């Protein structure tokens, strides 16, 4: 069940958790007795070789989550080499000059730990969850494979077959995934987010040892990595162990800034349609290019988060209430914003009809709600409740140490820092109704959007 090579279309967490805090948000105001502990104080520091380290203490159970994030994802791949970032993630589990293939996996399972890895557009991460006593061992293995991997043609060939199977199971066997891939390739006209993380099949088939070694030598360096340790440990201990292990790895050449191809002005309405015999209920989504936390002007990304929540974040959202509950024309409808990205990102609305309703009716109703929020804005009550939901979700996120590790890791890998995470609740609190209306009006313009339609076979051509 543990899939080593997790590949992510989006980041790890629901948008509402994409950034979080560490301080007490609601805890301080509770009437609970003095059993409420000190907050989980986050520490960050740099090793001499440039590796960033973040420690998130959580002493509830003797478990520690250890993650190494490399600031390299599919959007950094050379032209024609799509899928190399994810392929390389798989190859990181092969033999090194110090450990035979499978030795790291056996060491993890011998102590009942869990380990895995994932790749996204902007980062690749490797993680283990173990008892604190095994932390040094995990660091030793990770530091070793940062530089000492042995890549043979045999290893390349077999593992390439594995990623081709992964592509077949995740994408090619699933019409919704095939459509999503084509929508991304249409929404993004120039930016590399148009290329799937897992890669295009014909390019994946050609990935070779030379590509892998070049990729490894360029990116798998301590000065391109972030170490996140969350759990039953103290910062001083983590620092001492990290210096003993990762600290011994030589700093690599400085990487150039991650400047990627940027979008031209978006000025058309595009549609992508897939009809498939496996589909019997049609559905649609509409997407826009919008700023991410890294590219937005101050406050804009926070406003987009709240806009997504109010417009389509759940059962209390406008889309759900209007289309599913009141009009009764949709089986579902919603919206989301994926803010934790290095470059501009996307804002999405979606819906599917129920009963005798037509897809066109659902789409028209979604468009009407988008237009209404862009022209009329949101109410103070809606805004407050949406903010409350965000703050609440962050309290719940604190209950899971690997969630906290992922929040910090994904933020630091996409141009943010520890303070961005910690100050996020305050920034959310400051968003005004006017700002939410403004981002809706500025970005959710149908004349420059991309819609995807998944249709039953018989509706093809309609």
């Amino acid at each position, binding site marked *: 069940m*543990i*899939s080593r090579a997790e590949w*992510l279309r989006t980041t790890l967490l629901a948008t509402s958790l994409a950034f979080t805090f560490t301080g007490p948000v609601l805890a301080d105001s509770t009437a609970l007795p003095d059993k409420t502990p000190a907050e989980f104080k986050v520490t960050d520091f740099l090793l001499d070789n440039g590796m960033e380290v973040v420690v998130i203490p959580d002493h509830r159970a003797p478990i520690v989550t250890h993650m190494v994030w490399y600031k390299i994802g599919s959007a950094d791949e050379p032209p024609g080499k799509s899928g190399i970032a994810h392929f390389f993630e798989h190859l990181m589990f092969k033999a090194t000059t110090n450990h035979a*293939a499978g030795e790291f996996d056996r060491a993890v399972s011998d102590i009942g730990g869990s380990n895995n890895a994932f790749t996204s557009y902007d980062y690749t991460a490797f993680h283990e969850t173990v008892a604190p006593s095994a932390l040094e061992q995990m660091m030793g293995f990770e530091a070793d494979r940062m530089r000492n991997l042995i890549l043979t043609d045999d290893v390349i060939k077999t593992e390439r077959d594995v990623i081709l199977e992964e592509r077949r199971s995740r994408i090619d066997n699933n019409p919704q995934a095939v459509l999503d891939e084509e929508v991304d390739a249409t929404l993004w006209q120039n930016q590399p987010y148009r290329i799937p993380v897992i890669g295009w099949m014909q390019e994946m088939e050609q990935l070779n040892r030379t590509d892998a070694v070049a990729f490894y030598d360029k990116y798998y360096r301590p000065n391109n990595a972030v170490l996140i340790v969350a759990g039953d440990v103290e910062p001083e201990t983590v620092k001492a162990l990290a210096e003993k292990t990762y600290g011994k790895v030589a700093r690599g050449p400085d990487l150039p800034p991650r400047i990627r191809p940027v979008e031209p002005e978006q000025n058309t309405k595009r549609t992508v349609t897939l009809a498939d015999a496996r589909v019997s209920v049609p559905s649609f989504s509409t997407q826009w290019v919008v700023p991410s936390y890294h590219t937005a002007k101050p406050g804009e990304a926070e406003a987009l988060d709240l806009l997504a929540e109010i417009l389509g974040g759940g059962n209390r959202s406008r889309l759900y209430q209007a289309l*599913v*509950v009141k009009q009764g024309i949709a089986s579902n409808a919603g919206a989301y914003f994926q803010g934790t990205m290095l470059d501009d990102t996307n804002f999405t609305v979606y819906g599917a*009809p129920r009963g005798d309703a037509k897809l066109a009716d659902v789409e028209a109703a979604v468009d009407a709600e988008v237009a209404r929020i862009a022209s009329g804005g949101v109410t103070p009550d809606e805004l407050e409740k949406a903010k409350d939901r965000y703050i*609440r979700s962050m309290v719940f996120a604190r*209950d899971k140490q690997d969630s906290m590790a992922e929040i910090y890791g994904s933020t630091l890998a996409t141009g943010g820092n520890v303070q961005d995470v910690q100050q996020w609740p305050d920034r959310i609190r400051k968003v005004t109704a006017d700002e939410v209306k403004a981002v809706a009006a500025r970005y959710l313009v149908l004349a420059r959007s991309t819609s995807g339609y998944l249709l039953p076979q018989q509706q093809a051509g309609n």
Partner: protein
Amino acid sequence: MTNQHRASFPSPTRGEGRTRTALATLFLSILFLILPALAARAMDIQQVTSPKGITAWLVEDYSVPIVAVRFVFGGGSTQDPVGKEGLTNLMTGLFDEGAGPLDSEAFQVRLDDAGAEMSFEETRDGVYGSMRMLAEQRDEAFDLLRLAVNEPRFDQAPIDRIRAQILSGIIANENDPDTVAQHRWARAVYGDHPYSRSDQGTRQSIAAITKDDLKALHKAVFARGGLHVAVVGAIDAETLKKKLDMVFGDLPQNQALTPVADVEPKLAQRVEVNYDLPQTSLQLAWPGVKRKSADFFPAVLMNEILGGGTFTSRLFAEVREKRGLAYSVNSSLVNQDHADALIVTTGTRSDRAAETLGIVRDVARQLAEEGPTEAELAATKKYLIGAYAITNLDSSSSIAATLVELQLDDLGIDYMQRRAGYINAVTLDQVKAAAKKLLTAEPTIMVVGPPLAGAGKG
């Protein structure tokens, strides 16, 4: 983060061998074994009994200001009357759609204002409820839970809306090869037993369900006799007792369940769903082992070695690492109240599916004939012992869920201290015997994809 595809054997939910959690739940035992002091700190389970006699297991913890509640009523979708399949599923969709004096809208507004999340879902064998709340607003949250559990309204408008959403889901999957295949698989393996029916029901059966059906089901299932409760978080035992009485204390004493027979999954069958797909799904079923059986832990160890949750299982090594035939391949023991099975699933390029099936069968055959090595067994014991806490106890909600399952399986409040002992006591001969007993049977095999090419050894 999405998980590798797991067996979609119908609704396995319970016990150490359950599909969703056997591997998704594994560390505290290592604490008890190796770090007893830390373990005690990590997990002090109290048994709490209210004045009205409601018992719950409580882990009191104030690190994060939240409370997680999990409970189950025995029953589940096996209780759906013939012709009204999908009744339990529809009911679970309606608990936050109006209760007591609050209609659907009012109930959901209050729930949102209370900062709480409530969910209900059914399995074949039970109706589960979960609630996550902020400690500072727990009074309001528990009050809403009381209303939902005792006085669901089942108003016609939400019934019709939720039913229409379920219907959309049923229609949406009618041409989906995997869904079609799972229905055919369940029918082949379980025959006429309730386990062969769809949880969601059919177009016809959900159309037939009335408000009276929902009320009758609620009355039959929501009773103190079939209830198990676990609570984790910022609440003390005395406060919890009051909440338990408030939420569950006025329910009737006894459930009125329709008896469900035990069933032996039917093996030695071939289910083929032909479809032009780039990747073929394979699923194989062998006999399982009951949770209460003396063979249980030997079988758990055997399953881990065959295709369990690590990257070191035999199936992972042979199918993926050596040959690159699949991204995912795994085995799991599935324990339901009335049936048990061992399931292997994988997905592989269609032109090599016959070869892959042959390899899966060879790996099983070899394990049946020769058993594992001492070294494999020793490593697997360490893994299973160590992994329990990491996967079972990594958040308040998962701790609460684990404690409910321990109660359902009647394993005792000190089970986590004893578990490592059970695993360590298993001998190589016992695992060999378990492998022989389970894996020498002729499995039922399902193939979803193009017809198998070549003369696979399967």
